[in-house]
């Protein structure tokens, strides 16, 4: 868990400097990143935000057909209220702004406060929270669930809906429905270290795997010795399918995501089994995603997100988008 960095305190700011230097479509204003064209007049704005250390999440998804702006916190810490305010302002093209971020207590307080401060400025805001992690609370307490990799689907749906010209209420409703149709579960193999921290965020044995662990090392469902990936995938898929969604569908999209250090080779081995299992359960997979979409720095592990589709959601998934880490055309 060595890091290629300078002073730990400079980690996030230097990372953002490099990000915008490499990707001139992104504009940095202190602790927010926005598209070059934001705000787009007459379009509903989509903003997100959260702690650093999860690239491409959150700010890597700023781009056309996705996020207009993003508020950026320190590593694994929420963005400040001031950043949330700036991001919402940067995204507001006069039709209101959807705040779309993961269900973490600190982030909620900050985005809520920011929204209230901006009410006086006449900026209408709504909120949809990523709550896809089925390991973080039971189905009866779905509102308490944390947001993990599935939020990437919500970004896509929200961004495409806004690009179509829908109003704030419509964008919010369709995005909330997408979150409600999405389920994620992850496994972790090794820990990560916050820059400057004396110790890793958690410890796990050299031969162990933890089912259901969160992306900051939040405790999961069980921990045991590593077993063949097919068995692990089978359990993950079984857990995902056992968790009811409001409107189940036989057409699903699936995201097999690396938490960071787990290489593409292993993701494809896992995806092979995911596809086999879903097919044998009667599902058809649409536009699968395999890669590092939501990470925790050098943490090893992976997550599987399942998005149940309807015709509209499928069309929104297929709509064009363009950011440094995801392009549909």
């Amino acid at each position, binding site marked *: 868990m060595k890091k290629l960095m300078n002073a730990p305190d400079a980690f996030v700011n230097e990372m953002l400097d490099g990000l915008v230097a490499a990707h001139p479509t992104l504009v940095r204003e202190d602790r927010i990143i926005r598209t070059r064209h934001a705000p787009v007049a007459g379009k509903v704005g989509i903003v997100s935000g959260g702690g650093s250390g999860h690239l491409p999440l959150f700010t890597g998804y700023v781009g056309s057909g996705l996020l207009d702006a993003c508020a950026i916190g320190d590593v694994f*810490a929420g*963005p400040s209220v*001031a950043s949330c305010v700036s991001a919402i302002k940067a995204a507001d093209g006069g039709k209101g702004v959807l705040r779309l971020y993961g269900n973490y207590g*600190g*982030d909620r*307080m900050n985005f809520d406060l920011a929204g209230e401060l901006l009410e006086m400025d006449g900026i209408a805001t709504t909120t949809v929270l990523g709550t896809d992690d089925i390991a973080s609370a039971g189905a009866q307490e779905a509102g308490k669930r944390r947001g993990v990799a599935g939020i990437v689907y919500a970004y896509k749906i929200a961004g495409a809906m806004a690009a179509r010209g829908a109003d704030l209420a419509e964008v919010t409703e369709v995005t909330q429905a997408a979150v409600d149709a999405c389920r994620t579960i992850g496994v972790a193999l090794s820990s990560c270290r916050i820059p*400057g921290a004396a110790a890793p965020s958690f410890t796990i044995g050299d031969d162990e795997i933890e089912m259901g662990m*969160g992306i900051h090392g*939040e*405790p999961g469902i069980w921990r045991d010795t590593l077993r063949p990936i097919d068995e692990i995938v089978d359990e993950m898929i079984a857990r995902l399918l056992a968790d009811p969604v409001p409107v189940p569908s036989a057409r699903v999209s699936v995201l097999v995501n690396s938490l960071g250090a787990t290489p593409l080779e292993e993701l494809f081995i896992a995806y092979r089994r995911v596809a086999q299992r879903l097919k044998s359960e009667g599902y058809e997979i649409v536009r699968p995603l395999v890669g590092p979409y939501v990470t925790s720095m050098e943490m090893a592990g992976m997550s599987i997100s399942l998005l149940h589709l309807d015709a509209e959601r499928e069309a929104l998934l297929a709509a064009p988008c363009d950011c440094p880490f995801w392009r549909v055309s």
Partner: protein
Amino acid sequence: MSITSLAVHGAIRRAAAGASRAHDELNAADGKLGDGDTGVMLQRLFQALAALDVEDGADLGATFQAYAKTCASATGSSLGTLVTVAMMTLAKATKGRSEIAWSDLGGHVAALRDQMMARGGANLGDKTVVDMIDAVALALDGASSGEEAASRSVAAARDTLAQFRNRPNRLGRARMFGEKTIGLDDPGMLAFVRLLDSVVAEPVGR
């Protein structure tokens, strides 16, 4: 005897010194059931507050508003944002006044406790900084001098820390650790005790 902007800023400065002293201890406490950053966050936040210019006799509402603005930019952590909420609440409550009486302090603390609960969603008994503030608000009820306020709030804070130590955390990330949190101090509660100890180490009012 009353509380002015200058007195408040003196307390902020002593809190900042206390946050520096408690840095490692608070990080360690948070490391056991959170992300290990309570100490570093509070040190930075209170240093930023202490660095503000506050003039004697300044409007208390303006002083707290300045603190609130600094907090809102300086931190995104949950405890930090609760400090922001506290400062915003105090700013509204003291707008246009250059001093408040010691006997009113308990009421103000009770008000910011309520705002923190509304914002953060914590309930009493969840083992968070809110339980600490609740206990202090009750203890301040009827206190009419700085000395009284100091001794009562310190005693209440220490008692509350001890009482809650053997209960489980019920909020946020710490909640996930369930029964394992029994026997551990909540980092936000511990921080409150350490900062309060520093604040009262010198006389708080005049």
